[in-house]
């Protein structure tokens, strides 16, 4: 254990403007030609915009924002199912707050709540289990979205509900996985990504043992990167160094939080509860083995089956270019609706809603006319 003073030093240190400038200077000295780097995680997109890191970088670096926004990639089919389930009598639909304003085919969870539907925001999936326990006469459904960071929490909710014998709890399984999406992005004929910042907190759970084969197959450097300004700059510098040297390894620029193996207990929990399934990503399409579905032995906890909600007709907005934004093909400001028809208060697409969506980051931090 380290003293409090030293501890707070290490957190503050990763926001030190002088150190960030030093790394930027290193980048300027190192870079000789243009490079396109994707930060997969929407949390990183927001941190980059929030701290203005995009404006400090050498002009040779283009950051392409990835699809790592769980709210954004949750397919319309699942959102419409959640909306439909929330409208059923005797149901309490629970969800992370971000999800409530995401537009479905016709409306969003907020409007269902306004109509009298019971929609409750939870901070943790365990809170949803608690609501089920306290309301034995209601069916409580948790909208289990998220990446590998959320998968253990979602899995634990099911394990816990089973352990205490809850029959009125189920989840709408919507978890997605990062590595299959990286394959899809890199395998696309439109791909122009030359280096990846891997999402640090996904790697805190999963480790980064899945990445060396990807780096080798596509000859692309991958750097595990954290979320503080200095972490992001270190990740970008490490990627640029490999690109300039013609190397394509996997490196860890977030060593305080991530090990190669990751969190074994969390991985076991995910594997105990879920199996990989093909999953549709909103705006991107179906990606093989990119989702998590409940194991057959836990099918009683699957809301899709409990409510027989799988065959719902959907209708996507015709103006919104969220799909191209999520694939890194277009920037939010290239959308004709950006900031006019589509704003965080009245979003047409999920990336304008979420605290991890690229459109919301551009809108909030004023990247409108660059």
């Amino acid at each position, binding site marked *: *254990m*380290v003293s409090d003073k*030293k*501890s707070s*030093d*290490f*957190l503050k*240190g*990763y926001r030190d403007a002088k*150190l960030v*400038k*030093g*790394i930027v*200077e*290193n980048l300027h*000295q190192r870079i000789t030609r243009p490079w396109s780097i994707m930060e997969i*995680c*929407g*949390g990183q997109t*927001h941190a980059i915009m929030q701290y203005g890191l995009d404006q400090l970088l050498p002009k040779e670096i283009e950051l392409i924002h990835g699809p*790592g*926004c*769980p*709210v954004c990639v949750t397919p319309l089919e699942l959102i419409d199912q959640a909306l439909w389930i929330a409208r059923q009598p005797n149901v309490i639909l629970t969800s*992370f707050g*971000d999800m409530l304003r995401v537009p479905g085919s016709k409306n969003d969870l907020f409007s269902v709540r306004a109509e009298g539907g019971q929609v409750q925001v939870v*901070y*943790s*999936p*365990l*809170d949803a289990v608690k609501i089920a326990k306290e309301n034995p006469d209601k069916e409580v459904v948790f909208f289990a*979205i*998220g990446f590998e*960071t*959320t998968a*253990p*929490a979602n899995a*634990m909710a099911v394990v*816990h509900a089973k*352990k*205490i014998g809850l029959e009125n709890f189920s989840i709408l399984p919507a978890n997605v996985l990062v590595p299959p999406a990286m394959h899809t992005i890199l395998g696309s004929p439109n791909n122009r990504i030359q280096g990846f910042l891997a*999402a*640090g*907190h*996904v790697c*805190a*759970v999963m480790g980064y043992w899945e990445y060396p084969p990807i780096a080798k197959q596509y000859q692309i450097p991958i750097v595990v990167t954290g*979320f503080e300004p*200095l972490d992001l700059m*270190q990740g970008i510098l490490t990627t640029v160094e490999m690109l300039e040297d013609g190397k394509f390894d996997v490196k860890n620029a977030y*060593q*305080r*939080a*991530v090990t190669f193996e990751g*969190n074994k*207990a*969390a991985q076991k929990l995910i594997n105990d509860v879920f199996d990989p399934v093909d999953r549709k990503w909103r705006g991107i399409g179906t990606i093989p083995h990119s989702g998590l579905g409940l194991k057959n032995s836990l099918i009683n906890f699957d809301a899709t089956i409990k409510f027989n909600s799988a065959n719902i007709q959907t209708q996507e907005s015709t103006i919104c270019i969220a799909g191209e934004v999520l694939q890194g093909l277009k920037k939010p400001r290239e959308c004709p609706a950006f900031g006019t028809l589509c704003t965080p208060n009245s979003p047409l697409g999920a990336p304008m809603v*979420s*605290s*991890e969506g690229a459109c919301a980051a551009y809108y909030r931090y004023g990247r409108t006319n660059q």
Partner: protein
Amino acid sequence: MCLGIPGKILSIYEDQTTRMAKVDFGGVTREVCVELIPEANPGDWTIIHAGFALNILDEDEALETLAILQEMSNLAELEE
């Protein structure tokens, strides 16, 4: 929602069947599940996401990385 936030574990306790902890986030205390980090102790730093502690932060590693970055930063200034 993928935004993991670092916090410091104040105390660990059992809540029925689940291992929980009180965690300090710069003055705000929250209850989080620590089932996924069985080796955690009070005083450890961890990243919390959706009410779950995902890992234990390695403070020595954090300080070492900072020292390296500091050195790189100083070198860059000298070369300017």
